[in-house]
Every structure is written in structure tokens, then in C-alpha cells.
């Protein structure tokens, strides 16, 4: 095993808290357990509105946010805001902070939040549009604006924890959640904050959004077998499955975490963001390779050190193989790769955050989650993709996220 090179020119940035609400569970523990067990969070959409759609499957949150949040608080929030708050609360508490920043002994003007989202409070917008049409402008909710504004999730989380160093929203489609982690790293390295709560959220299961993606031919239509629909790298893959939920991480400098005796999950060694400038939706392998290379170089690690990659792998005919090729070329064919979207579905803006949580736990627990539904792998698949959870020493790992619009984010995590 290679001894990891240490980039000691500045204080390491570490992950001290994790939070999530996903189609596999209402918290990190249940989600992680579901991932290791190879469970699927995809279900059939039995709502009346789903009947005319060509896509009638989705991955709904396993625990409805309205069952967790106080009713009066929940009714003033869009579903994506609800999910963000739930995940953020878990991560914040997991980081050892009780109450607001001030109550937890932190300086509020040194606490920042970054919560990305692909489309924010779109379901509230659509509901209120229906009300506008049916009952007129006087019946539109006075909460529409705060429910729909894309900075809503970040702002509400900032309000919860009392963050006064800046509350940001990274928007890069399916890379939003990972971009939030990357921005969190920057904020700490630029000395803009001492603690940053980062993450991503998405809750856009609605006929219009599904129709939109379906019209692009981007989604799986395997309606008769929901749990087998999300199948990265499998020859039978036919598009992604829409999921909803949120994931959060708390980042801090290693020295400050040590000073308060806080348990550290892993070090966030590097982040790299590139853009394809190629096509508005088709990914460009070159852009992905550059992100991976840049992240690797910045981390001070070698390709041999990266033993695991949590791939973006959305189960689309085109996207999956380009990324797998990049990983094989740069990191070697013995890299152990996982496509957790096979289980969670594609949570769009939340995907990068939830997959960062999974990558951190893989390092912390020395076990890589499986990829399910990989029954007939694509002939060009050259990396090692376990079908059951693989126990192994995970010294360092990469989380990739690529978004419509040509956004590429590669994050490198390593043992602390």
C-alpha cells in the first residue's frame, strides 16, 4: 500500500459531520445500510398524474419530510427546503454542534453554508401556478417566493444554524451537490469561514419535470420493473431514474476539529471543477478527464493511491462509459468503482452531496458499496465494479459529478 503523500503547506480540511435524507432512508445510517445491502429506493408512481406519462417510476424519499418536521414549519417550506433542513440538522449535530452557531460556541460570522440545488422550489411554483389559474392571484400563497427561490434551501439552513459568513447556492444541474463541497473547501482555504455546512437538495418529482426529461429521452421507461430500472454500465440501461432527497457535510480545518476533540471522518484533499464548452447536454470525456487529473494533482496523491471512485454513472447509454473509460485510463483498471445511483436513483442537485457522504463513509468504514442491476456489463467496462459490498482498505477515493451544461466536479477524499 502506498504511503499517502501529505500536502502540509496548509491545514487540512476535514469532514466532521454527515447528514442525509434519501430514497433509502431518512438519515445517514439507514441510507448507508441500504447502500451496503444493495437495496433500491425506486418505486412505481401510482399517482393519477403519472398515468399519462411515459415514465412512471421514481425514487421518493423513504421518510417523508412532513413526518419529521413540525407541521407549521413544514407547510412554509418547499419540499426541497424541507429535505435540506433535515439533512443539515443531522450533519450539524453529527459535527458536535448543538443549537445555533452561537449556542454551540462558534463565532457566527465565521460559519458559512453552501447548499446546491438543480431547480430548487419548482414544485411549489407549479402548485401555486395551478392555484393562480384556478382561483386567481388573490389566492396565491404569500410564501411562494421564499419557497421557490433557489437560494431558499441554503437560506433556511443558514437561518437554522445562524450562519453569518455567507450563505451560497451552487447551481450546476447534477453537479450542484459536489460543487457545494468544492466551494466549501475554497471558503475554508480562503479563510472566509471556520466551519462550512455544505450539501445539495432536490425534490422535483412532478409530471412537468418528468415529461421534460422524458421528452429528452434521458429517463428510463422500465415502468414494470422499477427496482431494476437504474442499471449503470449494464447493456440494458435506458436512462436515469429521478430521485429526491438531500445530503450534507460539515467541513472544518483539521486543527480546529482536533482542538475540540471532534471525530473526523476523512480529509477533503482536493476539488477540481472544469467545464466542457462542448454541448449543452452531451458530456465530453475530455472535460471529465481534466477534472480528474486536476483533482489528483491538487491532492498531492498518485493514481495508485486512489483505490475507489464513486462514479457519477446515471445509467444513461452514453454517459456511463465515457466516465468509466476516463477512470480506467487515469486511475487504472483495478480501481474499485461504484454506481450508487443504481440504488438511490439520480437525485440531481443532491446527488453529488449524497455521493460525497457515501465516499466519505467508504473511507471511514473501509467498505465500498455495490452497484446493483449490473447483470450484463457493457463490453468496454474496464474497471472493477463489485456487485456486493466490498470490504477493503480505502485509503483515498474520488467522487465524480457531471451536470447538464458541461459541468464536471471531481472531489478527492482520503483517510485523515
Amino acid at each position, binding site marked *: 500500500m502506498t504511503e499517502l503523500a501529505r500536502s502540509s503547506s496548509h491545514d487540512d480540511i476535514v469532514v466532521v459531520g454527515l447528514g442525509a435524507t434519501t430514497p433509502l432512508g431518512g438519515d445517514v445510517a439507514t441510507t448507508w445500510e441500504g447502500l451496503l445491502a444493495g437495496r433500491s429506493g425506486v418505486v412505481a408512481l401510482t399517482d393519477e398524474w403519472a398515468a399519462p406519462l411515459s415514465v412512471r417510476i421514481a425514487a421518493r424519499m423513504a421518510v417523508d419530510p412532513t413526518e419529521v418536521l*413540525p*407541521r*407549521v414549519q413544514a*407547510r*412554509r417550506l418547499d419540499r426541497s427546503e424541507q429535505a435540506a433542513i433535515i439533512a443539515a440538522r443531522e450533519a450539524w449535530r453529527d459535527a458536535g454542534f448543538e443549537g445555533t452557531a452561537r449556542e454551540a460556541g462558534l463565532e457566527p460570522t465565521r460559519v458559512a453554508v453552501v447548499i446546491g440545488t438543480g431547480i430548487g422550489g419548482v414544485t411549489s411554483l407549479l402548485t401555486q401556478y395551478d392555484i393562480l389559474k384556478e382561483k386567481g392571484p*388573490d*389566492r396565491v*400563497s*404569500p*410564501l411562494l417566493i421564499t419557497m421557490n427561490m433557489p437560494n431558499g434551501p441554503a437560506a433556511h439552513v443558514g437561518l437554522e444554524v445562524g450562519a453569518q459568513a455567507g450563505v451560497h447556492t451552487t447551481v450546476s444541474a447534477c453537479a450542484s451537490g459536489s460543487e457545494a463541497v468544492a466551494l466549501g473547501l475554497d471558503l475554508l482555504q480562503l479563510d472566509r469561514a471556520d466551519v462550512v455546512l455544505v450539501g445539495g437538495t432536490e425534490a422535483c418529482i412532478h409530471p412537468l419535470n418528468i415529461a421534460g426529461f422524458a421528452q429528452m429521452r434521458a429517463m428510463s421507461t422500465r415502468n414494470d420493473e422499477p427496482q431494476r430500472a437504474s442499471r449503470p454500465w449494464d447493456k440494458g440501461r435506458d436512462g436515469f431514474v429521478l430521485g429526491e432527497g438531500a445530503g450534507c457535510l460539515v467541513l472544518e480545518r483539521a486543527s480546529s476539529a482536533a482542538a475540540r476533540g471532534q471525530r473526523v471522518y476523512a480529509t477533503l484533499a482536493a476539488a477540481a471543477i472544469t467545464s466542457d464548452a462542448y454541448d449543452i447536454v452531451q458530456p465530453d470525456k475530455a472535460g471529465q478527464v481534466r477534472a480528474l487529473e486536476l483533482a489528483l494533482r491538487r491532492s498531492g496523491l498518485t493514481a495508485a493511491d486512489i483505490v475507489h471512485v464513486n462514479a457519477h454513472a446515471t445509467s444513461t447509454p452514453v454517459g456511463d462509459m465515457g466516465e468509466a473509460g476516463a477512470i480506467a485510463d487515469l486511475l487504472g483498471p483495478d480501481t474499485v468503482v461504484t454506481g450508487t445511483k443504481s440504488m438511490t436513483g439520480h437525485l440531481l442537485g443532491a446527488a453529488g452531496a449524497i455521493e460525497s457522504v457515501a465516499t466519505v463513509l467508504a473511507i471511514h468504514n473501509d467498505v465500498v458499496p455495490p452497484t446493483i442491476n449490473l447483470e450484463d456489463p457493457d463490453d468496454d467496462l474496464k474497471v472493477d465494479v463489485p456487485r456486493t459490498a466490498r470490504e477493503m482498505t480505502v485509503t483515498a477515493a474520488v467522487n465524480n459529478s457531471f451536470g447538464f451544461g458541461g459541468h464536471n466536479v471531481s472531489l478527492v477524499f482520503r483517510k485523515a
Partner: protein
Amino acid sequence: MASADEIREGLASILEEVADVKAADVSDDKSFTDDLDVDSLSMVEVAMAAEEKFGVKIPDDELPKLKTVGDAVAYIQSNA
């Protein structure tokens, strides 16, 4: 025509839905903001719901004048 009691009861159910106010707390002397913890955004929702329930529209310049439950009951009753 709704009686004061019916209006108060209807308001109580709206307040419970919008702001988790307990029915026992809804008496004429109670101030929306000071006693019942109902903020301005919630008051707009209360007015909207009251319009649906009682058919009485509460204009924007009137709403701030309705400080207590009693004020609201009286306004709705006299405009029904």
C-alpha cells in the same frame, strides 16, 4: 349570517392550521402578534383563508388594523 361564535370558531380552525394556535387560546382579547405568535406572512394567509371561509375580503389597509381576535371577528361579522 354567521354569528360571532361561529366566526371565532372558524378563525380558530384557520389559526390552528396556519400557526398551530390552540383553540383554547383563541379569545377576543388575544393579540395576533403578541399573544398568538402569528407573523405578518401568516396574517396574509389567515386573511386569505378567512375570505374563502366567510366570503369576506379583508383589504390590505384593513388587515394591520385587526390587532386582536375580537377585531377580526367584528370586521368579518360586519362585512358578511
